[in-house]
């Protein structure tokens, strides 16, 4: 969509006005600074998703839409998670982080902050694996998606 003030609120407003769900939304300018790219995750029947797509297309600032589920695609989400890490837990969490291909990006004597990238399901799995009481704080970006191979969304 056009990288203009207010474009994001039009999308968000459309979802609330028409009663659609936004599971996650991730947006930033592209290599062409006049354009932003947004990945939006929503839940609904095929009919609802069709309506969502059509309604989004009607927004003047939306340039192009694809439904990534129409083909093979990859999605990734970034999570930063701060966990309590003291005593024997420190080793355990470090190991767990390695298993999930995370990296520890901040360390204090009481905590680790781990950076993890993957599908939303993988991030959920990591949180399941760490004991709940150890998780101090999480922040997630929401999914970013891209088509596989030659499937390219370009204006």
């Amino acid at each position: 969509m056009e990288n203009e003030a207010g474009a994001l609120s039009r999308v968000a407003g459309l979802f609330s006005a028409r009663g659609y769900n936004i599971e996650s939304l991730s947006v930033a300018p592209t290599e062409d600074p006049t354009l932003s790219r947004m990945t939006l995750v929503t839940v609904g029947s095929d009919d609802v998703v069709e309506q969502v797509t059509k309604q989004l297309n009607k927004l003047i600032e939306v340039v192009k839409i694809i439904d990534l589920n129409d083909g093979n695609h990859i999605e990734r989400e970034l999570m930063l998670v701060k966990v309590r890490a003291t005593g024997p837990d420190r080793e355990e969490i470090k190991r767990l982080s390695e298993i999930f291909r995370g990296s520890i990006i901040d360390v204090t004597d009481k905590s680790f902050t781990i950076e993890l990238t993957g599908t939303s399901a993988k991030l959920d799995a990591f949180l399941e694996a760490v004991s709940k009481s150890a998780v101090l704080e999480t922040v997630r970006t929401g999914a970013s998606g891209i088509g596989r191979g030659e499937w390219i969304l370009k204006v």
Partner: protein
Amino acid sequence: MSVELTGAEITIRCLQEEGVQCIFGYPGGAVLFIYDELFKQDKVRHILVRHEQAALHAADGYARSSNKVGVALVTSGPGVTNAVTGIATAYMDSIPMVIISGQVPTSAIGLDAFQEVDTVGITRPCVKHNFLVKDVTELAQTIKKAFYIASTGRPGPVLVDIPKDVSQQKTKFVYPDKITMRSYNPVVKGHARQIKKAAELILSAKRPMIYTGGGVILSDAAAQLTELTQLLNFPCTNTLMGLGGYPGTDKQSLGMLGMHGTYEANMAMQYCDVLVAVGARFDDRVIGNPKHFYNENRKIVHIDIDPSSISKRVKVDVPIVGDVQDVLKELIKLLKSENAKPDQAALKDWWKQIDLWRERDCLKFDRDSKIIKPQMVVEKLFDVTKGDAFVTSDVGQHQMWAAQFYKFDKPRRWINSGGLGTMGFGMPAAMGVQLANPKGKVACVTGEASIQMCIQELSTCKQYRLPLKIVNLNNRYMGMVRQWQEFFHGNRYAESYMDALPDFIKLAESYGHVGMRIEKPEDIEGALKEAFKLKDQLVFLDFITDQTENVFPMVPGGKGLSEMILV
């Protein structure tokens, strides 16, 4: 080098470049520079209303009756919030409008300044698009875009918010000839293969039906619709927004369909085998319960310029996205070249069935009543104006009676708030209609409740000598509310009685107009004739009508089209 102009001068120059002859508005602090420029020129005429809501409705009526873009000018804060009802009204009915609003200076935005509201935020869900112009160098291009967006594709209102300092700043004025936007390219041409499929389906029909809406009016496609309908000898029904798209007095017209549609139109909708929907959107007031409407043996062709209107409430078999006029032209061309006709024997049987439904005489009412029946007033209005008036309405029973009993033969003659259902629309809309059609006969069919929602505009009518005929069907009730209370709420008429009504005759006279009260059925025609003879005067006709009259047929909410309550 060209001279530099202020933002205010540029605004007015843009309107002149767009050929705008008439705008509706109300001044205030944030738009004073723009009003100053209006004062210095005479190409764009400004109509001063008495409330911003009326400015929007008047611009709306102007647009609906003329197919030009309606333009309104309001100030920041309350100017805009008052206008919101009018903007939403236009949005729901897809009316091309440009609204110019003043805003507090850019340096004051976000600081809770005097008369500041987040105009772009407040209007966002009820405009096709809106802009806040923060830099005077972008002003001309933005206004050009606004007119382009408002009038192309599925039309709609577009708002341009101009901060006061932007209207003061200077820049070179260049008005672009043309706008191209990579993110906005409305489809015009229908897909040839889809049109072919539609033609095949049409030719296979045994019980066909053509169902048309406001899209036919907006696209100026009444001539094409009429040609197609008569070429095929198919029955045709119009929605509330589509009246006049097909001649209402023609034998192939089944009248209006929907909640208060005719028995024959609703039954034919329900039981047809091929339905051709043209510029209509199967909304809740038209088809009732979509589950009840669903019939796997009925095939549907749907022509609409807005893809999101297709398969929204009803799944269709042949969707055609495109401008209605263009698609109909292609369809007619194709049908003519194929030189084929649908099964004529089956069509004859279908017309026989329709005629049986017609015999039900669903719009009958007591013609011998000693009390004025509102239906009779509309019928006489039709007779007296020879069916050639512009008729605006407010919202409620009177609106339905006007739609049922005034047989519109031409498009852009029936002006009402169909989607949003805005009481208070009728009189200001009629002002816009009269200004767009100075020689036209303009009647506003209203009720004593609706008319009071914008009654202050009697003053505007006086100032600009707008000779409207206000046909007030006065039953001392919010009639439609009372009807629902009678049918669905055990006759408990909660707050629907209009007590303490003004003397409308004196009220009209106090504004310098003519007032008439009509209490007997035999006086209806004479009063209407006399009113239309007063060519230069607004006449307020206060018809004292039967308080108990209800609108029939009626499809109750949640019911199906064939489950009508009949009189």
